[in-house]
């Protein structure tokens, strides 16, 4: 009897635990993620590009079902949940409803009676965040969740995550990275894969620099940790320097302080692109999409410029098929086909073939070029809602340093296939995890020295 009861209880526990773990979450994830350094956060917080939040509903009828019916409902409430160790105050201001602007500290707060404008220009809320005076960590997220409620129904959600990073703190007498040719003295991002003197593991460390920056005492790599320095900057190609003794790096870090790694930044790489506009599509929209891709890739420090030739095509448009080569097609370039079909995709076996079906928003081409350069989607339900590689979203304009690294370094990138860096063997391509295609990479194992795809520092 005792044993049967125990078995019964065990079965019940297993069954319920399985049911609970099998559920899929339909809860929202961050709409926007910003990753500033803790050092100087108070000064840079104002430069963080926080998305505006329009007061209103996501669907034209506010919500499906009877809950939102009736024209008498003309106000919304914002339920705001603000959390984070370093958070001091959140300020919310509204352009056309200034009387509703307010400030509050961490915790849950509600702004009642915001006007729900169904036609005409609705009010827009703007956030700003103040961190605690003298806050020195620990680094971690500040989350601000805004739930727009019509009665009990959530009609729109916004979630800003400020993921505060513990970046390198420069002091004198340390190892140094010296940058030259930094166009416009941009605040470049220096990403280092190093074994730290205090530990055995290989870690990713970030510093900001316009020219010369102290980076602590870096020591030679060991084991699987191959130390390197990557630099991302506007209007310059991404730089990558091997500082690892065992793989012939020069210069390399030594156990002593005072090592210097000089890096001369180069002009951006140029990837050639042919854009074929079929089916009476608009040349102007294609021009706009190329301009968007170029501007956003530059602003996000990708270091790759698209030299695009856009041409109207009068013949029959190619079918969306990755098993045959469309016509026209030029090898050594990315070939983009604007077609009347509604699908959009980049072919996995040949990332030089990109289809953009209509009606396309201004971000679609940039997203597909990201695939061509080796990036994967951030799928629905993932974070980074404003990322260009986010699958679900039409107001996406950001890229992460981990993505920029892959576009430039991954052997499946179209840069490799199209010999944008000249002889492919002259560049130390890496086979990175979290990339769209590794077909061109051969059978080599994945490289452990690619940063996580989420690696990032803001502002750019």
């Amino acid at each position: 009897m005792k044993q049967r009861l125990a078995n019964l209880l065990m079965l019940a526990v297993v069954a319920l635990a399985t049911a609970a773990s099998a559920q899929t979450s339909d809860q929202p994830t961050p709409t926007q993620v910003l990753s500033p350094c803790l050092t100087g956060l108070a000064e840079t917080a104002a430069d963080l590009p926080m998305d505006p939040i329009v007061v209103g509903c996501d669907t034209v009828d506010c919500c499906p079902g009877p809950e939102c019916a009736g024209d008498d409902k003309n106000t919304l409430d914002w339920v705001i949940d603000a959390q984070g160790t370093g958070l001091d105050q959140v300020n919310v201001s509204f352009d056309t409803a200034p009387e509703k602007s307010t400030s509050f500290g961490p915790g849950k707060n509600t702004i009642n009676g915001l006007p729900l404008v169904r036609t005409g220009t609705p009010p827009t809320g703007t956030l700003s965040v103040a961190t605690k005076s003298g806050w020195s960590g620990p680094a971690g997220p500040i989350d601000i969740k805004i739930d727009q409620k019509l009665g009990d129904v959530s009609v729109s959600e916004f979630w800003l995550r400020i993921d505060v990073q513990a970046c390198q703190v420069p002091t004198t007498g340390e190892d140094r990275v010296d940058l030259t040719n930094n166009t416009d003295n941009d605040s470049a991002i220096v990403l280092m894969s190093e074994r730290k003197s205090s530990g055995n593991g290989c870690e990713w460390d970030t510093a900001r620099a316009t020219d010369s920056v102290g980076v602590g005492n870096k020591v030679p790599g060991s084991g699987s940790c191959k130390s390197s320095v990557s630099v991302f900057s506007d209007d310059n190609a991404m730089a990558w320097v091997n500082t690892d003794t065992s793989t012939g790096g020069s210069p390399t870090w030594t156990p002593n302080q005072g090592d210097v790694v000089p890096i001369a930044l180069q002009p951006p790489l140029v990837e050639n692109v042919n854009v074929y506009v079929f089916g009476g599509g608009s040349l102007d929209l294609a021009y706009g999409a190329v301009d968007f891709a170029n501007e956003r890739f530059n602003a996000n420090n990708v270091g790759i410029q698209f030299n695009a030739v856009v041409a109207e095509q009068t013949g029959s448009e190619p079918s969306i098929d990755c098993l045959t080569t469309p016509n026209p097609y030029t090898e050594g370039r990315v070939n983009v086909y604007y077609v009347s079909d509604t699908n959009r995709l980049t072919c996995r076996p040949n990332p030089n073939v990109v289809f953009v079906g209509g009606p396309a928003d201004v971000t679609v081409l940039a997203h597909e070029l990201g695939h061509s350069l080796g990036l994967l989607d951030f799928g629905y339900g993932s974070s980074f809602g404003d990322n260009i590689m986010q699958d679900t979203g039409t107001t996406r304009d950001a890229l992460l340093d981990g993505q920029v690294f892959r576009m430039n370094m991954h052997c499946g990138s179209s840069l490799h296939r199209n010999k944008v860096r000249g002889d492919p063997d002259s560049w130390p391509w890496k086979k990175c995890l979290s990339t769209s295609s590794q077909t061109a990479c051969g059978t080599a194992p994945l490289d452990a020295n690619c940063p996580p795809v989420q690696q990032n520092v803001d502002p750019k």
Partner: protein
Amino acid sequence: MSARGQLMKAWGCLVAVAVLATLSGCDWFRHHTVTEAEKATNARRVLVAYFECGECTANQLKNASDLGEYVVPSLRATLAQGPSNARNERMRQFLSLQHKRIVTYRQTHPGPGPAPIADDEARFVQAFLANYKAQYQIRAATVLAAIGTPDARRSLEQALQQQDLRADVRAAITRILRGGRGDNRSGATAN
């Protein structure tokens, strides 16, 4: 401990586990306790995920069409009007910002077409807003077709009576009513 005591203890544990499962959001329990407001909230999330997807998956369409008759009025309204006023305004702001960025960028960088100037902004914004509306309309029509009830089909037929439908939206609805596809799934990097 007596057998009766052991039995009581076992039942106590089972009840505790059930309560924990409920609190942790176990599907079975949640399905039986969902409120009308939660139902509306979840349906809104599912629809918007499909309206906004770039390279839509079969699952996104299935999730939307599984909502069935409950969302037909909402889809009908979307087919007629496109995105909500707030979504449209957010897109307008985004496009306006991007145009300003592009104008500045093109002052010092090359591009495929003539360098845009600030005066072009309204044209740029309107062109992409029109695409945004068309995308919502085609997606709404696709879900209505997938739902496939008489009411859903009637909504599609009524939409064709709208005088201001863009040619590509009209063509998509016509194709759907003839049994073809509207907006099917795409692959991120297919084949």
